[in-house]
Protein backbone atom coordinates (compact mmCIF):
# COMPACT_ATOMS: atom_id res chain seq x y z
CA UNK A 1 0.00 0.00 0.00
CA UNK A 2 2.78 2.34 1.04
CA UNK A 3 4.81 1.29 -2.00
CA UNK A 4 1.86 1.98 -4.29
CA UNK A 5 1.35 5.39 -2.69
CA UNK A 6 5.02 6.27 -3.17
CA UNK A 7 4.82 5.21 -6.81
CA UNK A 8 1.75 7.42 -7.38
CA UNK A 9 3.48 10.38 -5.72
CA UNK A 10 6.62 9.79 -7.77
CA UNK A 11 4.55 9.72 -10.95
CA UNK A 12 2.83 13.00 -10.02
CA UNK A 13 6.19 14.57 -9.27
CA UNK A 14 7.56 13.29 -12.56
CA UNK A 15 4.56 14.68 -14.48
CA UNK A 16 5.03 18.10 -12.88
CA UNK A 17 8.68 18.05 -13.85
CA UNK A 18 7.72 17.08 -17.42
CA UNK A 19 5.30 20.03 -17.50
CA UNK A 20 8.04 22.34 -16.26
CA UNK A 21 10.37 21.05 -19.00
CA UNK A 22 7.68 21.56 -21.60
CA UNK A 23 7.04 25.16 -20.46
CA UNK A 24 10.75 25.93 -20.54
CA UNK A 25 11.14 24.38 -23.98
CA UNK A 26 8.13 26.26 -25.38
CA UNK A 27 9.34 29.58 -23.99
CA UNK A 28 12.74 29.01 -25.57
CA UNK A 29 11.10 28.18 -28.89
CA UNK A 30 8.94 31.34 -28.77
CA UNK A 31 12.00 33.38 -27.92
CA UNK A 32 14.17 31.86 -30.64
CA UNK A 33 11.47 32.55 -33.21
CA UNK A 34 11.43 36.19 -32.04
CA UNK A 35 7.76 35.91 -31.21
CA UNK A 36 8.17 37.15 -27.66
CA UNK A 37 10.18 40.13 -28.86
CA UNK A 38 7.54 40.96 -31.50
CA UNK A 39 4.70 40.79 -28.98
CA UNK A 40 6.56 42.95 -26.47
CA UNK A 41 7.30 45.59 -29.13
CA UNK A 42 3.64 45.54 -30.17
CA UNK A 43 2.51 45.97 -26.56
CA UNK A 44 4.92 48.84 -25.99
CA UNK A 45 3.91 50.50 -29.25
CA UNK A 46 0.16 50.22 -28.70
CA UNK A 47 0.39 51.32 -25.09
CA UNK A 48 2.49 54.38 -25.83
CA UNK A 49 0.90 55.53 -29.07
CA UNK A 50 -2.05 57.16 -27.26
CA UNK A 51 0.28 59.37 -25.34
CA UNK A 52 3.07 59.93 -27.87
CA UNK A 53 0.99 60.80 -30.96
CA UNK A 54 -1.33 63.42 -29.35
CA UNK A 55 1.66 64.93 -27.55
CA UNK A 56 3.80 65.19 -30.70
CA UNK A 57 0.95 66.63 -32.78
CA UNK A 58 -0.30 68.92 -29.98
CA UNK A 59 -3.72 67.32 -30.23
CA UNK A 60 -4.47 67.37 -26.55
CA UNK A 61 -5.04 64.33 -24.37
CA UNK A 62 -8.31 63.00 -22.96
CA UNK A 63 -9.89 65.17 -20.27
CA UNK A 64 -10.01 62.52 -17.58
CA UNK A 65 -7.96 59.52 -16.50
CA UNK A 66 -11.01 57.29 -17.08
CA UNK A 67 -11.35 58.43 -20.68
CA UNK A 68 -7.66 58.02 -21.36
CA UNK A 69 -7.62 54.57 -19.79
CA UNK A 70 -10.75 53.53 -21.62
CA UNK A 71 -9.35 54.54 -25.00
CA UNK A 72 -6.00 52.97 -24.30
CA UNK A 73 -7.35 49.73 -22.86
CA UNK A 74 -9.80 49.19 -25.71
CA UNK A 75 -6.82 47.72 -27.55
CA UNK A 76 -6.12 45.09 -24.88
CA UNK A 77 -8.58 42.77 -26.59
CA UNK A 78 -6.67 43.09 -29.86
CA UNK A 79 -3.40 42.48 -28.06
CA UNK A 80 -4.77 39.35 -26.38
CA UNK A 81 -6.05 37.97 -29.67
CA UNK A 82 -2.81 38.66 -31.52
CA UNK A 83 -0.67 37.21 -28.71
CA UNK A 84 -2.99 34.27 -28.29
CA UNK A 85 -2.85 33.45 -32.00
CA UNK A 86 0.91 33.98 -32.05
CA UNK A 87 1.67 31.79 -29.05
CA UNK A 88 -1.13 29.23 -28.99
CA UNK A 89 -2.29 29.14 -32.62
CA UNK A 90 0.15 26.48 -33.84
CA UNK A 91 1.21 25.08 -30.52
CA UNK A 92 -0.20 21.59 -31.14
CA UNK A 93 -0.93 21.54 -34.89
CA UNK A 94 2.64 22.42 -35.87
CA UNK A 95 4.07 19.36 -34.11
CA UNK A 96 2.02 17.17 -36.42
CA UNK A 97 2.24 19.28 -39.56
CA UNK A 98 6.00 19.84 -39.36
CA UNK A 99 6.70 16.29 -38.15
CA UNK A 100 8.55 17.64 -35.12
CA UNK A 101 6.30 15.33 -33.10
CA UNK A 102 8.44 12.46 -34.40
CA UNK A 103 11.16 13.79 -32.11
CA UNK A 104 9.01 15.18 -29.34
CA UNK A 105 6.59 12.31 -28.67
CA UNK A 106 8.54 9.02 -28.69
CA UNK A 107 10.26 9.99 -25.44
CA UNK A 108 9.58 9.19 -21.77
CA UNK A 109 7.74 12.50 -21.41
CA UNK A 110 4.07 12.38 -20.48
CA UNK A 111 2.05 13.65 -23.47
CA UNK A 112 -0.43 15.38 -21.17
CA UNK A 113 2.46 17.24 -19.56
CA UNK A 114 3.76 18.29 -22.98
CA UNK A 115 0.40 19.80 -23.94
CA UNK A 116 -0.30 21.36 -20.54
CA UNK A 117 3.18 22.90 -20.70
CA UNK A 118 2.43 24.32 -24.13
CA UNK A 119 -0.81 25.86 -22.86
CA UNK A 120 0.81 27.35 -19.78
CA UNK A 121 3.74 28.75 -21.79
CA UNK A 122 1.31 30.45 -24.23
CA UNK A 123 -0.67 31.87 -21.32
CA UNK A 124 2.48 33.02 -19.52
CA UNK A 125 3.79 34.96 -22.51
CA UNK A 126 0.41 36.49 -23.31
CA UNK A 127 -0.02 37.42 -19.66
CA UNK A 128 3.39 39.10 -19.68
CA UNK A 129 2.50 41.06 -22.80
CA UNK A 130 -0.82 42.20 -21.30
CA UNK A 131 0.96 43.10 -18.07
CA UNK A 132 3.50 45.21 -19.97
CA UNK A 133 0.62 46.98 -21.71
CA UNK A 134 -1.14 47.74 -18.43
CA UNK A 135 2.10 48.82 -16.77
CA UNK A 136 2.92 51.32 -19.52
CA UNK A 137 -0.66 52.61 -19.48
CA UNK A 138 -0.53 52.93 -15.68
CA UNK A 139 2.73 54.90 -15.91
CA UNK A 140 1.17 57.24 -18.50
CA UNK A 141 -1.94 57.78 -16.39
CA UNK A 142 0.16 58.40 -13.31
CA UNK A 143 2.31 60.91 -15.20
CA UNK A 144 -0.59 62.80 -16.78
CA UNK A 145 -3.49 62.53 -14.33
CA UNK A 146 -2.43 60.55 -11.29
CA UNK A 147 -3.47 56.92 -11.06
CA UNK A 148 -4.87 56.97 -7.56
CA UNK A 149 -8.40 58.03 -8.59
CA UNK A 150 -8.97 55.02 -10.86
CA UNK A 151 -6.62 52.48 -9.29
CA UNK A 152 -9.36 50.03 -8.23
CA UNK A 153 -11.11 50.11 -11.60
CA UNK A 154 -7.80 49.83 -13.37
CA UNK A 155 -6.86 46.70 -11.42
CA UNK A 156 -10.33 45.31 -11.99
CA UNK A 157 -9.89 45.84 -15.73
CA UNK A 158 -6.48 44.14 -15.57
CA UNK A 159 -7.88 41.12 -13.73
CA UNK A 160 -10.79 40.87 -16.14
CA UNK A 161 -8.43 41.03 -19.12
CA UNK A 162 -6.43 38.15 -17.61
CA UNK A 163 -9.59 36.11 -17.30
CA UNK A 164 -10.57 36.98 -20.87
CA UNK A 165 -7.06 36.07 -22.00
CA UNK A 166 -7.41 32.55 -20.57
CA UNK A 167 -10.73 32.12 -22.38
CA UNK A 168 -9.14 33.27 -25.65
CA UNK A 169 -6.06 31.06 -25.20
CA UNK A 170 -8.24 28.02 -24.46
CA UNK A 171 -10.28 28.66 -27.61
CA UNK A 172 -7.16 29.03 -29.78
CA UNK A 173 -5.49 26.03 -28.10
CA UNK A 174 -8.59 23.99 -28.88
CA UNK A 175 -8.41 24.95 -32.57
CA UNK A 176 -4.73 24.05 -32.61
CA UNK A 177 -5.54 20.63 -31.15
CA UNK A 178 -8.17 19.70 -33.69
CA UNK A 179 -6.90 21.27 -36.91
CA UNK A 180 -4.24 19.79 -39.15
CA UNK A 181 -2.56 22.89 -40.44
CA UNK A 182 -0.87 25.52 -38.29
CA UNK A 183 -1.91 28.39 -40.53
CA UNK A 184 -5.57 27.31 -40.34
CA UNK A 185 -5.59 26.98 -36.56
CA UNK A 186 -3.79 30.31 -36.11
CA UNK A 187 -6.05 32.21 -38.49
CA UNK A 188 -9.21 30.59 -37.18
CA UNK A 189 -8.17 31.45 -33.64
CA UNK A 190 -7.52 35.03 -34.64
CA UNK A 191 -10.58 35.59 -36.82
CA UNK A 192 -13.01 33.75 -34.55
CA UNK A 193 -12.46 36.38 -31.85
CA UNK A 194 -11.88 39.30 -34.20
CA UNK A 195 -14.67 38.71 -36.69
CA UNK A 196 -16.66 35.50 -36.51
CA UNK A 197 -17.92 35.81 -32.92
CA UNK A 198 -18.65 39.57 -33.30
CA UNK A 199 -20.59 38.87 -36.51
CA UNK A 200 -22.63 36.24 -34.67
CA UNK A 201 -23.16 38.75 -31.89
CA UNK A 202 -24.44 41.34 -34.35
CA UNK A 203 -26.75 38.91 -36.10
CA UNK A 204 -28.15 37.53 -32.84
CA UNK A 205 -28.66 41.03 -31.47
CA UNK A 206 -30.50 42.01 -34.64
CA UNK A 207 -32.91 39.14 -34.16
CA UNK A 208 -33.15 40.07 -30.48
CA UNK A 209 -31.39 37.03 -29.08
CA UNK A 210 -28.90 37.89 -26.39
CA UNK A 211 -25.50 36.37 -27.36
CA UNK A 212 -24.65 35.60 -23.72
CA UNK A 213 -22.85 32.40 -24.66
CA UNK A 214 -20.28 34.07 -26.90
CA UNK A 215 -16.87 34.81 -25.41
CA UNK A 216 -16.46 38.07 -27.29
CA UNK A 217 -19.74 39.40 -25.82
CA UNK A 218 -17.90 40.13 -22.58
CA UNK A 219 -14.68 41.58 -23.95
CA UNK A 220 -16.07 45.11 -23.43
CA UNK A 221 -15.81 44.70 -19.66
CA UNK A 222 -12.08 45.29 -19.99
CA UNK A 223 -12.92 48.98 -20.50
CA UNK A 224 -16.46 49.11 -19.12
CA UNK A 225 -15.28 48.34 -15.60
CA UNK A 226 -13.70 51.78 -15.59
CA UNK A 227 -16.70 53.04 -13.67
CA UNK A 228 -19.32 53.43 -16.34
CA UNK A 229 -17.09 54.82 -19.03
CA UNK A 230 -18.08 53.28 -22.32
CA UNK A 231 -15.50 52.47 -24.95
CA UNK A 232 -15.13 55.29 -27.43
CA UNK A 233 -15.05 52.87 -30.31
CA UNK A 234 -11.40 53.31 -31.14
CA UNK A 235 -10.75 49.68 -30.44
CA UNK A 236 -10.98 46.82 -32.83
CA UNK A 237 -14.72 47.20 -32.76
CA UNK A 238 -17.21 49.28 -30.85
CA UNK A 239 -19.84 47.90 -28.50
CA UNK A 240 -22.71 49.04 -30.66
CA UNK A 241 -23.54 45.50 -31.77
CA UNK A 242 -24.78 44.58 -28.37
CA UNK A 243 -26.50 47.87 -27.71
CA UNK A 244 -29.86 46.24 -27.12
CA UNK A 245 -28.51 44.09 -24.32
CA UNK A 246 -26.35 44.67 -21.31
CA UNK A 247 -23.99 41.80 -20.55
CA UNK A 248 -23.91 40.91 -16.89
CA UNK A 249 -20.46 41.16 -15.31
CA UNK A 250 -20.72 38.09 -13.08
CA UNK A 251 -22.46 36.11 -15.75
CA UNK A 252 -19.55 37.07 -18.00
CA UNK A 253 -17.06 35.69 -15.49
CA UNK A 254 -18.85 32.34 -15.44
CA UNK A 255 -19.06 32.14 -19.23
CA UNK A 256 -15.38 32.99 -19.66
CA UNK A 257 -14.44 30.48 -16.96
CA UNK A 258 -16.57 27.93 -18.80
CA UNK A 259 -14.73 28.62 -22.05
CA UNK A 260 -11.37 28.46 -20.28
CA UNK A 261 -11.92 25.17 -18.52
CA UNK A 262 -14.08 23.35 -21.04
CA UNK A 263 -12.06 24.20 -24.14
CA UNK A 264 -8.77 23.57 -22.37
CA UNK A 265 -9.90 20.08 -21.32
CA UNK A 266 -11.37 19.40 -24.75
CA UNK A 267 -8.20 20.65 -26.45
CA UNK A 268 -6.09 18.47 -24.19
CA UNK A 269 -8.28 15.47 -24.97
CA UNK A 270 -8.01 15.93 -28.73
CA UNK A 271 -4.28 16.69 -28.59
CA UNK A 272 -3.73 13.43 -26.70
CA UNK A 273 -5.93 11.52 -29.08
CA UNK A 274 -4.01 12.71 -32.13
CA UNK A 275 -1.53 10.28 -33.57
CA UNK A 276 1.46 10.69 -35.89
CA UNK A 277 -0.03 8.75 -38.80
Amino acid at each position, binding site marked *: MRGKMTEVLDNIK*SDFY*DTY*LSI*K*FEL*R*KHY*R*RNRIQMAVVLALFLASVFYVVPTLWNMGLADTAEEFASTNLSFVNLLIIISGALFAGDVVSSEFE*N*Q*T*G*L*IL*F*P*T*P*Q*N*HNSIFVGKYIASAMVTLSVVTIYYTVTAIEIQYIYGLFGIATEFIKSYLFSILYMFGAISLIFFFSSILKRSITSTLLGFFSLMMIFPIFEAVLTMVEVEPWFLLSYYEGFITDVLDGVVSTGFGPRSREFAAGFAPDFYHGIYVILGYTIFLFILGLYFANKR*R*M*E
Partner: protein
Amino acid sequence: MNKTSDNGNAIRVENLVKKFGDLTALKGVSFKVKKGDIVGYLGPNGAGKTTTIKLLTNLLSPTFGKVYINGINVNKNPQKALSYVGSLIEVPGIYGYLTPNELMTHFGKVYRMSSERITKRIKKVLSTVRLGDWEHKKIEEFSTGMKRRLAIGMALLPEPEILILDEPVMGLDPKGIKEIRELINKLGEKEITIFLSSHLLQEVSLTCNKVIFLFEGEIVAYDDVEKILEAPEHKRISVEFLNPLSKDEIDSLRSLKPIGKVKVEGNEAKIDNGGEKRHMHKILSLLVEEGLEVVSFNYEKKDLEDLYISLAGENE
Protein backbone atom coordinates in the same frame (compact mmCIF):
# COMPACT_ATOMS: atom_id res chain seq x y z
CA MET B 1 21.35 -2.58 -17.77
CA ASN B 2 17.94 -2.40 -16.19
CA LYS B 3 16.55 -4.99 -13.88
CA THR B 4 13.41 -5.44 -15.92
CA SER B 5 13.31 -8.89 -17.41
CA ASP B 6 11.17 -10.36 -20.13
CA ASN B 7 12.98 -13.66 -20.64
CA GLY B 8 15.83 -11.80 -22.25
CA ASN B 9 13.57 -10.02 -24.72
CA ALA B 10 14.16 -6.34 -25.32
CA ILE B 11 11.17 -6.07 -27.64
CA ARG B 12 8.17 -8.36 -27.75
CA VAL B 13 5.36 -7.86 -30.22
CA GLU B 14 2.23 -9.96 -29.95
CA ASN B 15 -0.30 -10.34 -32.72
CA LEU B 16 -0.10 -6.73 -33.76
CA VAL B 17 -2.87 -5.50 -36.00
CA LYS B 18 -3.14 -1.94 -37.24
CA LYS B 19 -5.96 -0.71 -39.41
CA PHE B 20 -6.30 2.68 -41.07
CA GLY B 21 -9.93 2.76 -42.12
CA ASP B 22 -10.34 -0.05 -44.62
CA LEU B 23 -6.62 -0.59 -44.99
CA THR B 24 -4.98 -3.17 -42.75
CA ALA B 25 -1.34 -2.13 -42.50
CA LEU B 26 -0.32 -4.91 -40.10
CA LYS B 27 -2.05 -8.28 -40.07
CA GLY B 28 -1.16 -9.94 -36.78
CA VAL B 29 2.58 -9.40 -36.56
CA SER B 30 4.42 -11.18 -33.74
CA PHE B 31 8.14 -11.29 -33.01
CA LYS B 32 10.67 -11.07 -30.22
CA VAL B 33 13.98 -9.25 -30.21
CA LYS B 34 16.54 -10.58 -27.75
CA LYS B 35 18.69 -8.16 -25.79
CA GLY B 36 21.88 -7.32 -27.67
CA ASP B 37 20.55 -8.36 -31.07
CA ILE B 38 20.78 -6.14 -34.11
CA VAL B 39 17.64 -6.86 -36.07
CA GLY B 40 16.94 -5.63 -39.55
CA TYR B 41 13.29 -5.10 -40.37
CA LEU B 42 13.02 -5.43 -44.10
CA GLY B 43 10.28 -4.75 -46.49
CA PRO B 44 9.33 -2.70 -49.52
CA ASN B 45 7.65 0.67 -49.18
CA GLY B 46 4.17 0.18 -47.75
CA ALA B 47 4.96 -3.19 -46.14
CA GLY B 48 4.20 -1.82 -42.66
CA LYS B 49 7.71 -1.14 -41.35
CA THR B 50 7.15 2.43 -40.22
CA THR B 51 3.73 1.53 -38.83
CA THR B 52 5.38 -1.14 -36.66
CA ILE B 53 8.02 1.31 -35.49
CA LYS B 54 5.40 3.93 -34.66
CA LEU B 55 3.56 1.31 -32.63
CA LEU B 56 6.79 0.39 -30.83
CA THR B 57 7.29 4.03 -29.87
CA ASN B 58 3.67 4.81 -28.95
CA LEU B 59 3.19 7.21 -31.85
CA LEU B 60 0.29 5.02 -32.90
CA SER B 61 -2.09 2.83 -30.94
CA PRO B 62 -2.63 -0.72 -32.13
CA THR B 63 -6.04 -1.82 -33.35
CA PHE B 64 -5.24 -5.12 -31.72
CA GLY B 65 -2.24 -6.75 -30.09
CA LYS B 66 0.45 -5.69 -27.68
CA VAL B 67 3.94 -4.25 -27.75
CA TYR B 68 6.38 -4.70 -24.88
CA ILE B 69 9.70 -2.98 -24.31
CA ASN B 70 11.74 -4.75 -21.62
CA GLY B 71 8.50 -6.42 -20.58
CA ILE B 72 6.62 -3.13 -20.18
CA ASN B 73 3.47 -2.59 -22.22
CA VAL B 74 4.19 0.46 -24.37
CA ASN B 75 0.57 1.53 -24.59
CA LYS B 76 -0.14 1.17 -20.90
CA ASN B 77 3.07 2.65 -19.55
CA PRO B 78 4.74 4.54 -22.38
CA GLN B 79 6.85 6.76 -20.14
CA LYS B 80 8.58 3.86 -18.45
CA ALA B 81 8.84 1.75 -21.60
CA LEU B 82 10.27 4.58 -23.69
CA SER B 83 12.83 5.51 -21.05
CA TYR B 84 14.87 2.58 -22.43
CA VAL B 85 14.51 3.66 -26.03
CA GLY B 86 16.26 6.07 -28.35
CA SER B 87 14.53 6.43 -31.69
CA LEU B 88 14.73 7.89 -35.14
CA ILE B 89 11.48 7.70 -37.04
CA GLU B 90 10.93 8.62 -40.68
CA VAL B 91 12.27 12.08 -41.47
CA PRO B 92 11.51 14.06 -38.34
CA GLY B 93 11.09 17.79 -38.46
CA ILE B 94 13.76 19.41 -36.35
CA TYR B 95 13.17 22.79 -34.74
CA GLY B 96 15.35 24.77 -37.14
CA TYR B 97 15.49 27.90 -35.02
CA LEU B 98 17.19 26.01 -32.17
CA THR B 99 20.77 24.81 -31.94
CA PRO B 100 21.79 21.16 -31.39
CA ASN B 101 22.90 22.14 -27.90
CA GLU B 102 19.50 23.62 -27.00
CA LEU B 103 17.62 20.70 -28.49
CA MET B 104 19.76 18.02 -26.88
CA THR B 105 19.79 19.78 -23.52
CA HIS B 106 15.99 19.67 -23.47
CA PHE B 107 15.78 16.03 -24.49
CA GLY B 108 18.55 15.10 -22.06
CA LYS B 109 16.43 16.52 -19.24
CA VAL B 110 13.43 14.60 -20.54
CA TYR B 111 15.51 11.43 -20.11
CA ARG B 112 16.37 12.62 -16.60
CA MET B 113 20.07 13.03 -17.35
CA SER B 114 22.11 15.28 -15.08
CA SER B 115 23.34 18.61 -16.52
CA GLU B 116 26.91 17.41 -16.29
CA ARG B 117 26.16 14.21 -18.16
CA ILE B 118 24.13 16.08 -20.77
CA THR B 119 27.07 18.39 -21.49
CA LYS B 120 29.45 15.45 -21.85
CA ARG B 121 27.08 13.40 -23.98
CA ILE B 122 26.29 16.31 -26.33
CA LYS B 123 30.00 16.72 -27.09
CA LYS B 124 30.50 12.98 -27.51
CA VAL B 125 27.43 12.36 -29.64
CA LEU B 126 27.95 15.38 -31.89
CA SER B 127 31.51 14.34 -32.47
CA THR B 128 30.33 10.80 -33.30
CA VAL B 129 27.94 12.11 -35.95
CA ARG B 130 30.54 14.60 -37.25
CA LEU B 131 28.70 17.70 -36.03
CA GLY B 132 31.14 18.72 -33.32
CA ASP B 133 31.68 22.18 -34.80
CA TRP B 134 27.98 22.82 -35.17
CA GLU B 135 26.86 22.55 -31.55
CA HIS B 136 25.82 26.20 -31.28
CA LYS B 137 24.72 26.81 -34.88
CA LYS B 138 21.06 27.05 -35.79
CA ILE B 139 19.78 23.78 -37.25
CA GLU B 140 18.09 25.62 -40.14
CA GLU B 141 21.60 26.15 -41.55
CA PHE B 142 22.18 22.39 -41.75
CA SER B 143 22.04 20.28 -44.91
CA THR B 144 19.64 17.32 -45.16
CA GLY B 145 22.42 14.85 -44.36
CA MET B 146 23.51 16.89 -41.35
CA LYS B 147 19.95 16.97 -40.03
CA ARG B 148 19.77 13.20 -40.46
CA ARG B 149 23.00 12.75 -38.54
CA LEU B 150 21.74 15.09 -35.83
CA ALA B 151 18.54 13.03 -35.53
CA ILE B 152 20.64 9.89 -35.12
CA GLY B 153 22.74 11.72 -32.53
CA MET B 154 19.59 12.62 -30.62
CA ALA B 155 18.56 8.98 -30.55
CA LEU B 156 21.98 8.11 -29.11
CA LEU B 157 22.05 10.94 -26.56
CA PRO B 158 20.57 9.10 -23.54
CA GLU B 159 22.73 6.00 -24.23
CA PRO B 160 19.58 3.92 -24.64
CA GLU B 161 19.47 0.17 -24.11
CA ILE B 162 17.30 -0.12 -27.19
CA LEU B 163 17.78 1.83 -30.37
CA ILE B 164 14.92 1.93 -32.86
CA LEU B 165 15.92 3.33 -36.21
CA ASP B 166 13.66 3.81 -39.19
CA GLU B 167 15.65 3.98 -42.44
CA PRO B 168 18.69 5.44 -40.65
CA VAL B 169 20.82 5.99 -43.74
CA MET B 170 18.13 7.66 -45.80
CA GLY B 171 19.39 10.92 -47.27
CA LEU B 172 23.02 10.25 -46.40
CA ASP B 173 25.91 10.30 -48.84
CA PRO B 174 28.06 7.14 -49.25
CA LYS B 175 30.53 8.40 -46.65
CA GLY B 176 27.69 9.10 -44.23
CA ILE B 177 26.19 5.66 -44.89
CA LYS B 178 29.52 4.00 -44.15
CA GLU B 179 29.90 5.99 -40.94
CA ILE B 180 26.43 5.10 -39.73
CA ARG B 181 27.07 1.45 -40.58
CA GLU B 182 30.29 1.49 -38.57
CA LEU B 183 28.52 3.29 -35.75
CA ILE B 184 25.77 0.67 -35.63
CA ASN B 185 28.35 -2.12 -35.63
CA LYS B 186 30.20 -0.40 -32.80
CA LEU B 187 26.98 -0.01 -30.80
CA GLY B 188 26.25 -3.67 -31.39
CA GLU B 189 29.50 -4.53 -29.67
CA LYS B 190 28.26 -2.65 -26.59
CA GLU B 191 25.28 -4.99 -26.35
CA ILE B 192 22.78 -2.33 -27.29
CA THR B 193 19.69 -3.82 -28.87
CA ILE B 194 19.12 -2.30 -32.28
CA PHE B 195 15.97 -2.63 -34.31
CA LEU B 196 16.33 -0.99 -37.67
CA SER B 197 14.00 -0.85 -40.58
CA SER B 198 15.31 -0.50 -44.07
CA HIS B 199 14.62 -1.28 -47.65
CA LEU B 200 18.38 -1.27 -48.33
CA LEU B 201 19.06 -4.98 -48.01
CA GLN B 202 22.77 -4.66 -48.46
CA GLU B 203 22.94 -2.35 -45.45
CA VAL B 204 21.06 -4.81 -43.31
CA SER B 205 23.28 -7.73 -44.31
CA LEU B 206 26.32 -5.68 -43.29
CA THR B 207 25.02 -4.49 -39.93
CA CYS B 208 22.42 -6.92 -38.58
CA ASN B 209 22.71 -10.39 -37.11
CA LYS B 210 19.02 -11.12 -37.51
CA VAL B 211 16.51 -10.17 -40.09
CA ILE B 212 12.74 -9.99 -40.31
CA PHE B 213 11.11 -9.92 -43.73
CA LEU B 214 7.83 -8.07 -43.80
CA PHE B 215 5.54 -8.19 -46.76
CA GLU B 216 2.10 -6.57 -46.99
CA GLY B 217 1.75 -6.39 -43.23
CA GLU B 218 2.85 -9.96 -42.55
CA ILE B 219 6.14 -11.46 -41.48
CA VAL B 220 7.37 -13.88 -44.12
CA ALA B 221 10.67 -14.84 -42.46
CA TYR B 222 12.62 -14.15 -39.26
CA ASP B 223 15.98 -15.71 -38.55
CA ASP B 224 19.71 -15.13 -38.24
CA VAL B 225 21.08 -13.48 -41.36
CA GLU B 226 23.71 -16.23 -41.68
CA LYS B 227 21.20 -19.04 -41.18
CA ILE B 228 18.90 -17.58 -43.77
CA LEU B 229 21.66 -17.16 -46.29
CA GLU B 230 23.09 -20.62 -45.57
CA ALA B 231 19.79 -22.44 -45.87
CA PRO B 232 19.86 -24.78 -48.91
CA GLU B 233 16.69 -23.29 -50.32
CA HIS B 234 18.41 -19.94 -50.33
CA LYS B 235 21.29 -21.09 -52.47
CA ARG B 236 21.39 -21.34 -56.21
CA ILE B 237 23.44 -22.23 -59.22
CA SER B 238 24.75 -19.62 -61.58
CA VAL B 239 25.32 -20.95 -65.10
CA GLU B 240 27.02 -19.15 -67.96
CA PHE B 241 26.36 -20.35 -71.52
CA LEU B 242 28.41 -19.78 -74.60
CA ASN B 243 25.63 -17.89 -76.32
CA PRO B 244 22.40 -16.27 -75.16
CA LEU B 245 19.67 -18.89 -74.82
CA SER B 246 16.83 -19.07 -77.34
CA LYS B 247 13.23 -19.22 -76.14
CA ASP B 248 13.08 -22.97 -76.82
CA GLU B 249 16.27 -23.52 -74.86
CA ILE B 250 14.91 -21.50 -71.95
CA ASP B 251 11.68 -23.55 -72.02
CA SER B 252 13.58 -26.82 -72.09
CA LEU B 253 15.81 -25.59 -69.23
CA ARG B 254 12.75 -24.73 -67.16
CA SER B 255 11.17 -28.10 -67.79
CA LEU B 256 14.11 -29.99 -66.33
CA LYS B 257 13.71 -31.64 -62.93
CA PRO B 258 14.87 -31.00 -60.14
CA ILE B 259 15.41 -27.47 -61.42
CA GLY B 260 13.28 -24.89 -59.64
CA LYS B 261 12.79 -21.30 -60.65
CA VAL B 262 15.03 -20.09 -63.42
CA LYS B 263 15.98 -16.49 -64.09
CA VAL B 264 17.67 -15.98 -67.46
CA GLU B 265 19.47 -12.85 -68.48
CA GLY B 266 21.38 -12.95 -71.76
CA ASN B 267 23.74 -15.91 -71.61
CA GLU B 268 23.41 -16.31 -67.84
CA ALA B 269 20.91 -18.29 -65.82
CA LYS B 270 20.25 -18.37 -62.09
CA ILE B 271 18.72 -21.64 -61.03
CA ASP B 272 16.87 -21.89 -57.70
CA ASN B 273 16.60 -25.08 -55.73
CA GLY B 274 20.04 -25.95 -56.92
CA GLY B 275 21.74 -25.25 -53.66
CA GLU B 276 21.66 -28.83 -52.57
CA LYS B 277 24.89 -30.47 -53.63
CA ARG B 278 23.20 -33.79 -54.43
CA HIS B 279 21.27 -31.99 -57.18
CA MET B 280 24.20 -30.14 -58.65
CA HIS B 281 25.73 -33.02 -60.57
CA LYS B 282 22.36 -34.07 -61.89
CA ILE B 283 21.56 -30.58 -63.11
CA LEU B 284 24.90 -30.20 -64.85
CA SER B 285 24.42 -33.57 -66.60
CA LEU B 286 20.93 -32.59 -67.72
CA LEU B 287 22.16 -29.28 -69.11
CA VAL B 288 24.84 -31.06 -71.13
CA GLU B 289 22.37 -33.73 -72.28
CA GLU B 290 20.06 -30.99 -73.54
CA GLY B 291 22.94 -29.72 -75.65
CA LEU B 292 23.22 -26.40 -73.84
CA GLU B 293 26.72 -25.02 -74.20
CA VAL B 294 27.77 -24.54 -70.57
CA VAL B 295 30.82 -22.34 -70.05
CA SER B 296 30.74 -22.07 -66.26
CA PHE B 297 28.71 -23.66 -63.52
CA ASN B 298 28.88 -22.15 -60.01
CA TYR B 299 27.20 -22.64 -56.73
CA GLU B 300 26.32 -19.33 -54.97
CA LYS B 301 24.36 -17.90 -52.04
CA LYS B 302 21.47 -15.61 -52.73
CA ASP B 303 21.95 -12.15 -51.35
CA LEU B 304 19.25 -10.67 -49.16
CA GLU B 305 17.77 -8.80 -52.07
CA ASP B 306 17.19 -11.93 -54.14
CA LEU B 307 16.01 -13.73 -51.07
CA TYR B 308 13.56 -11.00 -50.26
CA ILE B 309 12.18 -10.97 -53.78
CA SER B 310 11.71 -14.75 -53.74
CA LEU B 311 10.08 -14.67 -50.28
CA ALA B 312 7.79 -11.86 -51.30
CA GLY B 313 7.00 -13.72 -54.51
CA GLU B 314 5.95 -16.81 -52.61
CA ASN B 315 3.44 -14.73 -50.68
CA GLU B 316 1.94 -13.02 -53.67
